[in-house]
């Protein structure tokens, strides 16, 4: 029962978020929450840009969506694999789990997270982003 309730709430929230980000452009809306790390330090955090990316992707501009935050775009399939191997059992999925949820795979994710965090705040990256985003 508890599981059903959690899944239902998550599904309703997901549909709500999709509709919200399809119609509101976070670039220009003051109601879109700003990143506290960006406000305090002036540097972008690893997740900065996902609201704008969601808006772009939901309106068909996949190129801009990707370049606003390539880290999250690339990590999303990995995250979905972790979700799949966590909640579904089976012979093939069990062997997939031992790869996807291996310690080193997770360490790789953490390493990528910090590399991306530094990279995106370099002048070099921001110049690239200026041209594409």
């Amino acid at each position, binding site marked *: 029962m508890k599981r059903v309730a959690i899944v239902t709430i998550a599904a309703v929230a997901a549909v709500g978020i999709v509709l919200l980000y399809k119609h509101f452009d976070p670039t220009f809306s003051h109601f879109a*929450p700003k990143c506290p790390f960006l406000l305090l330090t002036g540097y972008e*955090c690893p997740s900065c840009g996902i609201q704008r990316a969601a808006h772009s992707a939901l309106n068909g501009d996949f190129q801009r969506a990707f370049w606003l935050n390539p880290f999250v775009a690339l990590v999303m399939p990995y*995250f979905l694999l*972790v*979700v799949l191997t*966590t909640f579904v059992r089976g012979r093939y999925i069990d062997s997939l789990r031992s790869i996807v*949820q291996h310690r080193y795979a*997770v360490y790789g*994710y953490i390493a990528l997270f910090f590399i991306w965090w530094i990279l995106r705040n370099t002048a070099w990256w921001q110049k690239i982003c200026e041209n594409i985003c």
Partner: protein
Amino acid sequence: MTTTPPQRPNDHLVLAILTTLCCCMPLGIVSIVRSTQVNSYWAAEKYDEAVQASEDAKKWALIGMGLCIAGVFIYLLFFGGLVALGIGLSEL
């Protein structure tokens, strides 16, 4: 004396990764590191440590999420307040 628990504790990896992506990244990283330790400790038959790591992973992920959601609510209240003030002042 450690008794063998019935099953491996949940490592809460999904929750941990979600917290790093959501916005509260330092707590999410703590949660991920503790999450990976669950299986290592379990494999090394350190059951108490495994259970402790599992609880920590869950705790930090949920605190991170909570802060994130609370932050969004405070932000919306703040801006909602400003907009209401703006409308109020413009009608003076």
